[in-house]
C-alpha cells in the first residue's frame, strides 16, 4: 500500500474517485437486479402465489436468466418510430439514476477515504437538477414511439413530473432550514445525535410529503399514470422490446433505489444508527463497512416499502393525481415551510 501514499494527491483523488464510481455503479446494477426479484417474490407473497423460485437456490439466479433472455431476444425496431429518439430514450432514462448516486454519502469512511463520490456544497440542488432531467427519457420514449398510447404516456409523465417536482422541492426546504446546509454529508452530521435528531421525526410533514412525491417521481403505483397498463397498455414503453425494454425496466428500479437513497440520507439519518456509537465516522475498516451495510439496509427497507405499496393501493385517476399534487401537497408544503420558519424564529 506504500505506493498509494507516494502518489501525488491529484492522482490519488482520481484513482479513488474512479474506484468509487466503479463500485457504486456495479453495486447499483446488482441491487437493481435483486430489487426486481424482491418485487416479484413480495408480489407473490401478497397475492398468495409462490413466485419465481426455479433458477438457482430460492430463485436467486432469476435476474441472470432474465438478463440473458433480454439480450438474446431480437432487437426489433418497429417501422413507424422515430429512429434517433427511439435509440436515445432508453439510454437517457438510465442516466439520471446513476448520476444521483454521485452525491449520496453511502458510508462514513473507509480508511481515510470519505465514502461519497462528490461531496458537493449544493448537493440537494444537484439531485433536484438530475431528477428534473429524468423526465426526458420518458417523454422522448413516448414521442419516439409515434403512436398514441406511448404518446399519451409521455404527455402524462411530463405533466405529472413537473407538478410533483414542485411539491418535492418545497418539501425539502425545511430540511435545509433546520440543517443550515445543502451538503448531504452535513445533513447526515446534523442527524447523528440520537434517534430523534433524524429529520423524519423532526419534520414529519416534510418526510411524508417527500415520500409521496418520491412515488410520483419514480412513476410507481399509485402514481404510475405514464404506464398504466390497463388503460395505456404499458404507456411510454409499448413499442419497445428486448434489451431496450429491459433498460426501461432497470431504470425504474434504479430510480427507486436512487430515490430511496435520497430519503434515507435526508430523513432517516443516512449511514448512522443512534446506538453503539455508530453515529460517528468510522474509526476502523470494519465499522466503516458496517455503516455501508446500515445504509444499504435502510435503502432496502424503503425499497420494500415502495414495493409493498404497489401491491396494496390502486392507481389514481389522472385528474385526482393533478388535484392531489396542486391542491393538497403544494399548499401543505407551503404551510409546512411557513410553520417551520415561524417556529425557528420563535426559538431564536
Amino acid at each position, binding site marked *: 500500500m506504500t505506493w498509494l501514499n507516494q502518489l501525488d494527491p491529484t492522482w490519488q483523488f482520481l484513482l479513488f474517485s474512479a474506484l468509487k464510481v466503479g463500485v457504486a455503479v456495479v453495486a447499483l446494477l446488482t441491487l437493481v437486479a435483486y430489487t426486481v426479484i424482491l418485487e416479484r417474490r413480495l408480489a407473490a407473497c401478497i397475492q398468495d402465489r409462490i413466485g419465481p423460485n426455479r433458477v438457482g437456490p430460492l430463485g436467486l439466479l432469476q435476474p441472470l436468466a432474465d438478463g440473458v433472455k433480454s439480450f438474446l431476444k431480437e432487437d426489433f425496431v418497429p417501422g413507424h418510430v422515430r429512429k434517433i429518439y427511439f435509440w436515445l430514450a432508453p439510454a437517457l432514462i438510465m442516466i439520471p439514476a446513476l448520476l444521483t448516486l454521485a452525491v449520496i454519502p453511502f458510508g462514513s469512511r473507509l480508511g481515510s477515504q470519505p465514502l461519497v463520490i462528490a461531496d458537493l456544497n449544493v448537493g440537494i440542488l444537484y439531485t433536484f*437538477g438530475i431528477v428534473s432531467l429524468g423526465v426526458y427519457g420518458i*417523454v422522448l420514449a413516448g414521442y419516439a414511439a409515434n403512436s398514441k398510447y406511448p404518446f399519451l404516456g409521455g*404527455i402524462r409523465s*411530463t405533466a405529472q413530473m*413537473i407538478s410533483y*417536482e414542485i411539491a418535492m422541492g418545497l418539501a425539502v426546504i425545511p430540511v435545509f432550514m433546520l440543517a443550515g446546509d445543502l451538503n448531504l454529508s452535513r445533513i447526515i452530521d446534523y442527524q447523528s445525535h440520537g434517534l430523534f435528531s433524524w429529520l423524519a421525526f423532526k419534520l414529519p410533514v416534510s418526510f411524508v410529503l417527500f415520500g409521496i412525491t418520491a412515488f410520483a417521481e419514480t412513476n410507481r403505483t399509485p402514481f404510475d399514470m405514464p404506464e398504466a397498463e390497463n388503460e395505456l397498455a404499458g404507456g411510454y414503453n409499448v413499442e419497445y422490446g428486448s434489451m431496450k425494454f429491459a433498460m426501461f425496466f432497470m431504470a425504474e428500479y434504479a430510480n427507486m433505489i436512487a430515490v430511496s437513497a435520497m430519503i434515507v440520507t435526508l430523513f432517516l439519518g443516512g449511514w448512522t444508527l443512534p446506538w453503539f456509537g455508530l453515529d460517528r465516522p468510522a474509526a476502523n475498516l470494519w465499522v466503516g463497512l458496517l455503516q455501508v451495510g446500515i445504509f444499504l439496509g435502510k435503502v432496502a427497507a424503503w425499497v420494500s416499502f415502495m414495493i409493498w405499496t404497489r401491491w396494496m393501493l390502486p392507481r389514481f385517476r389522472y385528474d385526482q393525481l393533478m388535484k392531489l399534487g396542486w391542491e393538497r401537497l403544494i399548499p401543505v408544503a407551503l404551510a409546512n415551510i411557513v410553520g417551520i420558519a415561524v417556529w425557528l424564529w420563535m426559538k431564536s
Partner: protein
Amino acid sequence: MNEILFYSLAALTLGCGLLVVANPFSRNPVTSAMFLVMTILSLAGLFVLLGAFFLAAVQVIVYAGAVIVLFLFVIMLMGSHELPRRAFHWLLAAAACLVTGALAALLLRLLSALKTQPPAVGAPVEGGTALLGRLLFTDYLLPFEVVSVVLLVAMVGVIVLSRKEAA
C-alpha cells in the same frame, strides 16, 4: 485541466446553440429543444468553472427541468412535428445576417477596445447558496420582491390565457 474543460464546454455550447437555430439534418422542433437542453447543460458546466455553483444548479433545474419540458409539452400538444418547408426569403435571410453580423462586429470592436484589466484582487468568489441568499435579502430585496410579483402576474396571466372558453 480547467482550460481543456472550458474550451470543450464552450465549443459544446456554441455548437449546440447553432444546432438549435439551424439544424441542417432535421426540421423537427423536438430536435431543437433537445439541443437547447445540451446548450443549457454545457452552460451550467461553464457556470461551475466560473464558481457559480448555485446558479449552475438553478440553471439546470429551471431551464432543463421546467422551461424546455414546457416547450416539449407544447410541441407535443400542437402535434405539428415536422415544420413545413416554405419558400426561403433571401432578402429576409440577408437582412438577418447583416444585422447579426453588425452586432457581432460591434461587440468584437468593443471587446478589443477594452483595455482595462479586471481588478483581480482577492480570492475568486464562489456563488454559494448562503452568500447569494444574504445578498438577495439585503441589497436586492426590492428587485427580489418585484420579481415575485412578476411571477405572480405571469401565473395569473397564463391561467387567464389558457382557459378553454375564455369569456
